[in-house]
């Protein structure tokens, strides 16, 4: 019931299809292991004398910890060690500290207060899972409940409970200046004033759980030479290694991470939820330690795709052109930052969607609330805003009394159009996707829409220009009163403040050439003898070019221009993008 076809005729002159194995539906390297159950995931490793780690989690959304009594748990059968916050060498971290982004704000084990229901407070290491679970029940924690806040806008109001002391305003701090990330392009207010129709709507996405069939977990075991082997399900092996090295305070070469084969992630395995405590446990006990979330923990405390609330205000002309768009959005980070600060930047770059609009502004907030910290998920920073944008587009089509497909094609960005983040669009193909989907769905399009192209009309006139832009100082850190401030400055048309991106670095090739698309060419003349079958012969691929289109003869495409050699050899250093990092 699912079928796929390839439209090789479209953009054929931009491709050289004379390739050997690229573009072929050959069998996956990992498939034989999957069907024979020989694929080894992190938990499929046996260790003698392995301990099992379970954590005691907060039953409160927000509470002060008055006392922790682990004495009964320490005496329980099979218990080998009990860990508390004081046992964690660096008990405060933020994931993106590895790229100098944001302040350390999250403990591995809570010490003086808990900021979400499910926050780990104590870890138990025991000979069996059952013993660890039984001992967890013996830990006595005396809590003093605090008022909690769950709404992304309520939490930004003066007087709201402080969720995260590192960010006392309950928002992530951008550039050490603002409580949100700004995007300003043109003059949206003038755009609205000149529009035939102005509409604003509110959209919301609830959190979403990654729900991989394999839960988060890891096994850490002492290796030789004071090193520790870690079987990990991390989506970023060195990300997990670096985070662990920082938290347990060891050099990175004392950790030997093995992973790469993960039972689904979707973004839910970038947070290093288990590795630091597993390694710490192995260090302190000298035994292998297994720390695996159970399904309920994964569902409720394994960090979801964060919720978002999005307001979109559009200025529309009766002919369907969008002339101004303002987006105000709130990411629900939960109690700690994790990766939400990055999602807001990605979202800012995505505004206003795949359309060219002359006046665009956005204000993207990251709000802290007393819920499980959220993290990346498939489509991070984009999925919710795409939902909002495209439902809004449906509303605009109705308001303009226009077909929704036609409205998309009319406003679609094309090659050469200036995006609000002040870089020209290239390699676009929205128009063609709309045309092909309409054709296959038997959704009629006007002749004009059928003739449209991503290659035509982009960058014409003002479409390639950076307009004069109104700036403001709204939303200064610690000054919610400044959120409705005036325009402070008009940036002249054409102004750019950020240096254009450097060419990609591809150091390593012996000739030093950075030419990714310059690949080996094959003799066009093939021997008559058929090639030997690959080890795993897939079923005949059902991909055929659409029959209604006869693909043009494929002339050998000229090789793309060779980029100049890049003299950079490891000279790139991370620099702070926003804010500061205080360790």
């Amino acid at each position, binding site marked *: 019931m699912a079928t796929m076809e390839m439209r090789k005729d479209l953009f054929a002159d931009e491709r050289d299809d004379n*390739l050997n194995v690229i573009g072929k539906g050959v069998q996956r390297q990992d498939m034989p292991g999957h069907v024979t159950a020989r694929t080894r995931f992190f938990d499929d490793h046996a260790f003698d004398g392995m301990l099992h780690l379970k954590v005691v989690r907060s039953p409160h959304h927000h509470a002060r910890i008055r006392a922790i009594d682990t004495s009964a748990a320490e005496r329980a059968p099979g218990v080998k060690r009990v860990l508390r916050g004081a046992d964690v060498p660096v008990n405060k971290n933020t994931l993106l500290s590895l790229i100098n982004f944001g302040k350390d704000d999250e403990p591995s084990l809570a010490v003086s207060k808990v900021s979400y229901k499910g926050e780990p407070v104590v870890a138990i290491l025991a000979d069996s899972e059952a013993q660890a679970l039984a001992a967890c029940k013996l830990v006595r924690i005396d809590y003093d409940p605090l008022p909690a806040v769950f709404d992304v806008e309520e939490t930004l109001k003066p007087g709201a409970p402080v969720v995260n002391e590192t960010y006392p305003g309950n928002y992530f701090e951008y550039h050490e200046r603002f409580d949100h990330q700004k995007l300003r392009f043109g003059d949206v207010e003038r755009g609205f004033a000149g529009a035939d129709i102005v509409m604003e709507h509110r959209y919301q996405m609830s959190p979403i759980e990654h729900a991989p069939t394999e839960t988060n977990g890891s096994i850490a075991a002492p290796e030789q030479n004071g090193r520790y082997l870690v079987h990990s399900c991390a989506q970023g092996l060195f990300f997990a290694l670096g985070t662990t090295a920082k938290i347990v305070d060891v050099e990175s070469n004392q950790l030997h991470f093995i992973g790469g084969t993960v039972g689904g992630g979707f973004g839910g395995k*970038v947070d290093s939820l288990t590795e630091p405590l597993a390694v710490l446990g192995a260090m302190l006990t000298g035994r292998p330690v297994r720390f695996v979330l159970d399904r309920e923990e994964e569902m409720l405390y394994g960090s979801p795709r964060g919720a978002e609330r999005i307001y979109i205000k559009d200025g529309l002309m009766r002919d369907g052109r969008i002339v101004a768009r303002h987006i105000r959005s709130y990411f629900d980070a939960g109690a700690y930052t994790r990766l939400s600060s990055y999602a807001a930047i990605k979202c800012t770059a995505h505004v206003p969607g795949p359309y060219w609009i002359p006046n665009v502004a956005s204000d993207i907030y990251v709000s802290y609330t007393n819920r499980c910290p959220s993290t990346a998920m498939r489509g991070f920073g984009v*999925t919710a805003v795409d939902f909002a944008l*495209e439902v809004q587009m*449906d509303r605009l089509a109705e308001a303009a009394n226009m077909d929704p*497909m036609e409205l998309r094609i009319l406003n679609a960005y094309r090659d050469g159009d200036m995006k609000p983040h002040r870089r020209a669009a290239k390699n676009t193909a929205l128009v063609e996707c709309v045309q092909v989907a309409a054709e296959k769905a038997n959704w009629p399009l006007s002749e004009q829409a059928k003739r449209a192209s991503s290659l035509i009309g982009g960058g014409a006139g003002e479409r390639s220009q950076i307009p004069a832009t109104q700036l403001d100082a709204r939303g200064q850190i610690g000054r919610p009163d400044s959120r409705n401030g005036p325009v402070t400055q008009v940036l002249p048309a054409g102004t750019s403040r950020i240096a254009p991106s450097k060419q990609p670095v591809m150091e390593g*090739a012996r000739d030093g050439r950075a030419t990714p698309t310059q*690949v080996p060419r094959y003799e066009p003349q093939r021997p008559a003898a058929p090639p030997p079958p690959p080890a795993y012969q897939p079923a005949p691929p059902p991909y055929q070019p659409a029959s209604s289109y006869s693909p043009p003869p494929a002339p050998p495409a000229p090789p793309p221009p060779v980029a100049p050699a890049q003299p950079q050899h490891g000279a790139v250093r991370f620099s702070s993008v926003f804010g500061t990092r205080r360790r």
Partner: protein
Amino acid sequence: MARHEGRGMASVNYPIGMNLGGDPSQALIHSNPDGKFTVALSAIDLGQGMKQVSRQIAAETLGVPIEDVYVDTADSDTGPHDMGSFASRGTHRMGNAIIVAAREARGVLLEAAAEELEVNAADLVTDGRGNIHVRGAPSRSITVKATAQAAQFKQGKTIAGRGIFLIPLSAVDAETGEMNPNTAFAHACLVADVCVDDETGEVEVLRMTSAYELGRVINPRMVEQQLVGGAWMGISHALYETPEPYYPNPEHGPRDFNEYLMPGPGDIAPYHVTVLERPAPDGPFGGKGPGEMCANPVLPAIANAVYNAVGVRVDELPITPEKILRGLKANGGVKPGPRRGGPVNWR
């Protein structure tokens, strides 16, 4: 009882790779003495197919059969640094690093073969089936295996390569949001046909039709896996999923796969995808990355189709039967929108 059909669409683009750059990937490739290659990485395969994508890119660039390449990932003792598998960066970033490494290894391979054949390396080509021969003269050839043996035991050459791909980190302007976010974008448009029960608010997705532009398709079977599985996830996000069913009220969170709602194997909608390939100028063989975006257009397309069917806008995900039923009551009944097109052009 009345069931109402409706149709909605959405079009989207998606950025490939970490937003501001600064996310390097490294690859190491070496041959054993029999001309079989190992690609050592720290990339992660979560099911998206990182190992096979890497293997195909390496085999293509080396010019050897796919069976002669094995991807070994991820071991931090042997695999060089990589940021990880997220942000649709695997194929684009790691693919490029592998190309760089494989080109270097190929260069040594051809030099070793040239020495054995007593020709100029620049005149040599590979046939992708384990042979190296003089351009235009297939009879003057040597196998990759014989070449590797000669390199190791006679010539003392390491047939190996190293590669890194890095888009340098960009800053972001505080006041304008100016930045260098991404270098490649994929595109999609999706049409959803739904049926809404006006007494229960239940939505059945009848079928979906989409077009995806993904740059060069490295492996069409794996692209199909991502797009079909991702569309299922899109339906799931649109109509079913959340760990906070009454958000922002945090109560009643699901604890298991019974309480966490996702479409079952009996809820699958027929789906047709057309794939377009506009190669990314800086992608590996023009490849982009379909892994993340494939759910995104489904959510708004279904929301718009529900509106077309019964006139209810549900602006808060997920679009549960309860929200639709409340909308129908608020609207005083069904208000269908215009019919859009006829039966789909596929079976």
